[in-house]
């Protein structure tokens, strides 16, 4: 039954941008809504500069990877299992430090970002984690509310935003369920809702549709597409060949930790 919600709410095409909170305000309003560690003047959102990541003692997860992503882009990251995609994301959130090389997000060099500024960075980078990373003691609603609380959102705004974003991902009726009371796909959608609720200028998704059926996946993709059109930069790791081939967005492919391909309007596999 919640599926139908998704479809009725998300499907009505991209013309309706502006009708709801997430993709709401047109132009580049997402930048204004939060404190700014990400430099809005620069046209580049992410820069990887010869980044190498070696997990001690000897697992080389990323190997001399360089690329740049402009603000407003929609980029797919593809690659076999274990090729370093999630590692890339962890570097972007400064959850890990690169062994060598430079990671720049919104004009800030993360390797030189002070520890105390890291929370600010993370609030500006929405992230859908591959393993969801929901707080086990909080309900679906509570998990999303927490992401708002950490940046000092008012109670009123929380009370308004949480149901809104939950209905966007088709989980209006699961607000009060704990993560362990949700199905895999439902947990994944809560994770998506949490990532987008505070309108971050950069959204990173690690296989956001891995646990979703094709119909729900399409709904989520449309949601992300709308958010992207409203100005948010989106970096999405996916294994969904069909989707990548259909969307024809920029594709970055990793292979054993190396950048194998970076195509402007690419498919899942090189042609």
């Amino acid at each position, binding site marked *: 039954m919640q599926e139908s919600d998704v479809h009725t709410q998300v499907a009505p095409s991209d013309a309706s941008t502006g009708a709801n909170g997430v993709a709401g305000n047109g132009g580049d309003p997402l930048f204004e809504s939060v404190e700014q560690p990400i430099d809005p003047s620069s046209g580049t959102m992410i820069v990887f500069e010869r980044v190498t990541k070696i997990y001690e003692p000897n697992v080389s997860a990323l190997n001399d990877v360089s690329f740049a992503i402009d603000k407003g882009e929609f980029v797919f990251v593809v690659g076999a299992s274990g090729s370093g995609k999630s590692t890339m994301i962890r570097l972007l959130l400064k959850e890990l430090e690169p062994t060598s090389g430079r990671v720049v997000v919104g004009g800030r060099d993360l390797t030189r970002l002070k520890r*105390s500024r890291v*929370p600010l960075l*993370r609030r500006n980078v929405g992230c859908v*984690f591959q393993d969801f990373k929901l*707080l086990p*003691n909080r309900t679906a609603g509570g998990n999303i509310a*927490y*992401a708002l*609380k*950490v940046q000092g959102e008012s109670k009123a705004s929380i009370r308004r935003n949480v149901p809104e974003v939950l209905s966007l991902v088709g989980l209006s009726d699961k607000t009060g369920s704990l993560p362990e009371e949700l199905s895999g796909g439902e947990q994944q959608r809560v994770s998506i809702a949490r990532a987008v609720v505070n309108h971050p200028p950069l959204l990173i998704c690690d296989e956001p549709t891995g646990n979703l059926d094709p119909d729900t996946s399409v709904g989520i993709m449309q949601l992300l597409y709308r958010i992207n059109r409203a100005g948010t930069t989106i970096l999405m790791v996916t294994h969904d060949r069909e989707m990548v081939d259909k969307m024809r967005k920029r594709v970055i492919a990793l292979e054993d930790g190396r950048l194998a391909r970076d195509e402007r309007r690419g498919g899942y596999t090189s042609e």
Partner: protein
Amino acid sequence: MRIKLLFSESFRSLAANVSTTVAATMTVLIGMFLLGLFIALGSWAQDFGETQKEKLLVKVYFCTEDTCAKAATPAQINAVRQQLASSRLVDEVTFVSKAEALDRMRRQTPQLVENLSSNPLPDAFEVKARDGADVKLVSASLRQPTKPPGVEEIKDGDEVSDQVVNVARVLTLAFLVATIVLLVSSALLIANTIRLSIFSRRREIEVMKLVGATNWFVRGPFMLEGLICGVVGSVIAIVMLLLAKEAALPAITNRLSTSSDIQAWPFVYVSAIILVVGITVGAVGSGLTIRRFLNV
């Protein structure tokens, strides 16, 4: 982090982690109960020791207008002091003036002193024998051949052997050591429990950090939680001690018929110590522990 949010987050978390909350609170409770018990016993033992030592003193009371015809003169007092000082048996002589005596009395039994118009107490010497066994000899030597002029009364120390005083001394020491050991142990135990309970939630902390919570936003509720556990545990411990006191003390005092003048520390002091220790270990323990998990 606003105060209200801090509190609501803490209580939410306490409720959500009943199991660890109960464990931590119970540890505080047990630790503080033991600590309180031993502070009380220790201070009682100390007072017992003091009282025993007191009993070894020979007291020489001088005349006042009330007791003899006229008060003892400074010369008379000095003569006694010299006699005592020259004795081989005497270790130490302390002069307690009327005023000092009244002061002491005021401290011990204020209600008695309140209604006095003048000071009825005499000047006195407190004489400590070099050896507890010689107390009798000291007083006898003063009395022979007659009481020195100006002396109204010579009070012997009780018949308390050196050994008892020594026992009292060792007892005091033992309880002091026990109390310190318990203080340290309780602190370690509580910190240990808090460490475990936070350890079991380290993934949660990791996630909080990943969605952009600052260190203090994560740490605040945990510290408040620790503090609340500390307060609740301590308060229950105090209540239990109070009950134990009300139930057990009469029985014990009956047995120790003559020693009702021996006092443990006032219960409020003990309670205060318990509360302060409980709270400190609770809050600081949480705060320090969580630091270890915050470097995500």
